[in-house]
């Protein structure tokens, strides 16, 4: 292995460990906040676990269709989304005025925007077949979600209780996964 390759591998290792530590620390913080134990333990524990995972996946990369730098981008965006959502819940508990609560409700949207932007970048870097697979998966996911959400609306008019709107996101994610698995199988 030549010098530039060694430097590249070291840089990759540092970036992976930093990214996974940050994600781990954020998850640890979230657990500490939710389960009410010391936040420092959550952050350090999460960061330590994340760093170990980052080290492991760099030394022995998992078999993936996508390069690690793309995984890093998605992890960073997801971490940002997590922190923005956490800040949102924290601030809502602080006894603020109604108008301030409305403004704070915008906070998680920045996180979601970051995730959508990263997914856009990831799609742009795919080759032609992978793009087709993603497009078909999204189309199938959209159709399934429309049937479920629209179908439930009909039941709601007939008397079933209202459900949390966030559940629609869960249905969309599940439907997308079904679409993705179907198209992967089709072009296997």
């Amino acid at each position, binding site marked *: 292995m030549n010098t530039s390759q060694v430097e590249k591998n070291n840089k990759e290792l540092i970036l992976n460990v930093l990214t996974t530590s940050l994600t781990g620390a954020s998850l640890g913080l979230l657990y500490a906040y939710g389960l009410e134990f010391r936040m420092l333990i959550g952050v350090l524990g999460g960061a330590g676990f994340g760093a170990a995972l980052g080290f492991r996946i760099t030394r022995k990369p998992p078999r993936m269709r996508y390069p690690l730098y793309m995984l890093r981008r998605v992890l960073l965006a997801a971490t940002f989304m997590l922190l923005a959502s956490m800040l949102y819940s924290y601030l809502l508990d602080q006894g603020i005025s109604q108008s301030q609560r409305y403004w704070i409700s915008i906070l998680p949207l920045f996180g979601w925007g970051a995730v959508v932007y990263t997914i856009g970048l990831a799609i742009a870097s795919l080759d032609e077949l*992978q793009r087709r697979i993603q497009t078909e998966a999204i189309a199938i996911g959209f159709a399934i979600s429309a049937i479920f959400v629209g179908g439930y609306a009909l039941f709601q008019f007939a008397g079933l209780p209202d459900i949390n709107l966030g559940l629609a996101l869960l249905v969309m994610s599940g439907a997308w996964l079904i679409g993705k698995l179907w198209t992967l199988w*089709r072009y296997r």
Partner: protein
Amino acid sequence: MKNRLKVLRAERNWSQADLAEALDVSRQTVNAIENGKYDPSLPLAFKMAGLFELAIEEIFFPEEGYA
């Protein structure tokens, strides 16, 4: 559309990963093209033709009944 990609690749002792890297696509894409599950775009077909130093019609040919 049928193709001779697998044969051409084997003649050169290339793995699917080698071919994918040369074409700047994923191994999954090479596999799908070889198995006839996916027809490549014209730019990708030209890239393949250039790589194997053949004409496109020497690599790809239509299914029977479509010629």
